């Protein structure tokens, strides 16, 4: 059931208990987790934190810990599947689920006792009505009970039996109709996957309701929201609305900036709301590198072709920026150039057909040297979490990424930024080679691209978030490069090698690229059906159903099934 008063029905319930936190492996979940940890430490709530990256890990961890806890909090996992069925908990276990995955499974919505959803109901949820899906079993039981009781009165029984015989086909037909309707409703409801409000924002809201919110928590909420935007999980409109909400909080916490007399010391942390450029990591890189490796500019300029690179030079010349300055580290650029850089770039970008260069976002300052945009932190944390270093396990990466979000661990954040740069560079190079060698082929209802094992940096793309990022950028670049009008509207399925010894690949499905995209993804269900139909050995382990693991040998029959399913 949906929780209406987060404070009474959630926080005050867990305040005096020991809780177990299951946290998924994405940046939004990490931010929500940080906020909740800060609240728990304030109130001395004893908790245990277990990172999980997929359903199997969740099940295993639950089995290990179930004797010791009664209250469980799941962050960014658990809403879109029948939780009680998967975990088989005891009757007194209580689950609080704060998850952005939609649609929320109907069993979770209508369970009144064990599952509490920490989800705002003004997210357009469109949950089907109770009667449409669950039928009262009482009518059936009365029917059979009548039959058993009637042993004593033969004549009455006969007349009643006659009536029942007449009534039965009617009931059966009704039931069949009802079941067909139910299947349709559920199919429509569960067909498309999408995401709701960021969990970090939900947690911040809870903190604000209890008047325990702090600037640090606000920053984490901002990073959580920006993560959803960077990963194209929410529509532009929702991003703008949520930014507006957070901006009010920012001005509430950080208004002392404007007042010259009571200005805070430079070392204090300040968040500011400002327009910025849609260039990844440009303040920590050189401007040239940033223009080259941001998907938006790389796709529009078509930087994989020589012609495109010439256009970039024209663009820089148009702005009057000398090449030498542009290739230097941003922080060492001439101050005179840096001052009006943003407006200069926006103007020229408009001329070159890039109207969305300006982005409203937040930045954080503390000390003289440390200034980060929210998107910088998102890229850094994402790279830390999915870094493919051989000797570290998944949970090590999770811990590193979680630490990097604290302001005391700046070295980890900078390390993350370096990894992010490598990731972006590798992404662009892979895209360039895919487009130049025409690796993106149309299969009919969708485009398909597969990375070969020997491709450089292919290890960077075996995890879901990195592969999804690559696929989305590839689709955007492809749409800009192709002249085929029909191909521009197709979705993309992308495969990359995961584990060479076991012969598995990661497959991800991306919805088509349209201007007014609602970010709804149907590949989750499509993959399931295709796998069932062909008996392919797949593992639907990730919390996002549109990313699966597949045995490389089953790849062709799986694809064929997918083609016939979607045509």
């Amino acid at each position, binding site marked *: 059931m949906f929780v209406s008063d987060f404070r009474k029905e959630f926080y005050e319930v867990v305040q005096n208990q020991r809780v177990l936190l299951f946290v998924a492996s994405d940046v939004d979940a990490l931010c929500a987790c940080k906020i909740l940890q800060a609240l728990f430490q304030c109130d001395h709530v004893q*908790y245990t*934190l277990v990172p999980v990256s997929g359903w199997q890990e969740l099940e295993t961890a639950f089995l290990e810990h179930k004797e*010791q806890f009664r209250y469980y909090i799941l962050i960014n996992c658990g809403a879109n599947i029948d939780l009680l069925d998967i975990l088989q908990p005891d009757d007194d276990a209580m689950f609080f689920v704060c998850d952005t995955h939609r649609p929320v499974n109907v069993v979770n919505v209508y369970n009144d006792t064990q599952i509490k959803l920490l989800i705002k109901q003004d997210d357009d949820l469109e949950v089907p009505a109770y009667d449409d899906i669950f039928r009262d079993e009482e009518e059936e039981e009365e029917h059979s009970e009548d039959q058993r009781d009637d042993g004593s009165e033969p004549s009455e029984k006969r007349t009643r039996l006659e009536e029942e015989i007449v009534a039965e086909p009617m009931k059966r037909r009704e039931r069949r109709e009802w079941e067909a309707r139910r299947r349709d409703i559920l199919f429509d409801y569960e067909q498309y996957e999408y995401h709701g409000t960021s969990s970090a924002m939900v947690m911040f809201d809870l903190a604000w309701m209890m008047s325990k919110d702090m600037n640090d928590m606000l920053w984490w909420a901002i990073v959580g929201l920006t993560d959803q935007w960077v990963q194209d999980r929410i529509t532009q409109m929702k991003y703008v609305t949520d930014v507006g909400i957070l901006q009010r909080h920012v001005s509430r916490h950080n208004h002392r900036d404007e007042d010259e007399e009571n200005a805070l010391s430079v070392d204090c942390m300040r968040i500011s709301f400002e327009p910025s450029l849609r260039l990844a990591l440009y303040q920590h890189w050189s401007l040239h590198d940033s223009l080259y490796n941001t998907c938006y500019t790389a796709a529009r300029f078509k930087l994989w072709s020589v012609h495109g690179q010439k256009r970039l030079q024209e663009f820089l010349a148009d702005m009057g920026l000398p090449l030498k300055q542009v290739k230097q580290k941003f922080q060492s650029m001439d101050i005179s150039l840096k001052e009006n850089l943003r407006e200069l770039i926006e103007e020229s970008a408009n001329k070159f057909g890039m109207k969305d260069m300006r982005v409203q976002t937040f930045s954080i300052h503390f000390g003289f040297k440390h200034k980060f945009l929210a998107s910088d932190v998102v890229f850094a944390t994402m790279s830390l979490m999915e870094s493919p270093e051989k000797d570290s396990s998944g949970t090590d990466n999770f*811990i590193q990424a979680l630490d990097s979000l*604290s302001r*005391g661990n700046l070295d980890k954040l900078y390390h993350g930024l370096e990894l992010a740069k490598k990731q972006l560079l590798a992404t662009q190079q892979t895209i360039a080679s895919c487009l130049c060698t025409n690796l993106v082929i149309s299969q009919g209802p969708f485009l398909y691209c597969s990375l070969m094992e020997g491709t450089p940096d292919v290890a960077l793309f075996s995890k879901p978030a990195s592969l999804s990022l690559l696929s989305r950028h590839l689709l955007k670049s492809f749409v800009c490069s192709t002249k085929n009008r029909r191909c521009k509207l197709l979705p993309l399925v992308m495969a990359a090698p995961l584990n060479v010894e076991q012969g598995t690949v990661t497959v991800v499905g991306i919805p088509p690229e349209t201007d007014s995209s609602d970010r709804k993804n149907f590949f989750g269900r499509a993959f399931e059906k295709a796998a069932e139909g062909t008996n392919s050995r797949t593992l639907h382990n990730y919390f996002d159903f549109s990313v699966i693991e597949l045995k490389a040998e089953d790849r062709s029959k799986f694809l064929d099934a997918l083609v016939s399913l979607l045509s």
Partner: protein
Amino acid sequence: MFCDRAIELVRELHRAPEGQLLAFNEDGLRQVLEEMKALYEQNQSDVYDRLLRIRALRWEYGSVLPNVLRFHMSAEEVEWFNHYKKSLATYMRSLGGDEGLDITQDMKPPKSLYIEVRCLKDYGEFEVDDGTSVLLKKNSQHFLPRWKCEPLIRQGVLEHVLW
């Protein structure tokens, strides 16, 4: 060599025939006595060092020493240890309020009741105050009372996470 003079003196006495008293070898005797004093002082510093170590043991292991260690100590050392224990207990009782303050619990002055710890290796189940237990698995984080975590932190199983 230390005992050379002493051995020489004894040999001289032994060599002299029965009943005869040799001249009182004052010089030799003085040297021997000096050697004895030096040796005695060295022994003293050794004994003192042992005492300091025993005192440290009280802080590390608590008021009951494991049997192995007690085996290694002489009777006097055990007695000294008991005296030390008693004076420490009296001192602690005299601190803070009615019950006294157990200062052997924390290594450094504590800042809060509960601390955030991270598990560095798989440890297994760990019992908490209310009887229930927590499973300590690698890379899981926990927020637990300080006094329960201290021994595990000392052993290196848990790591205190600072914010």
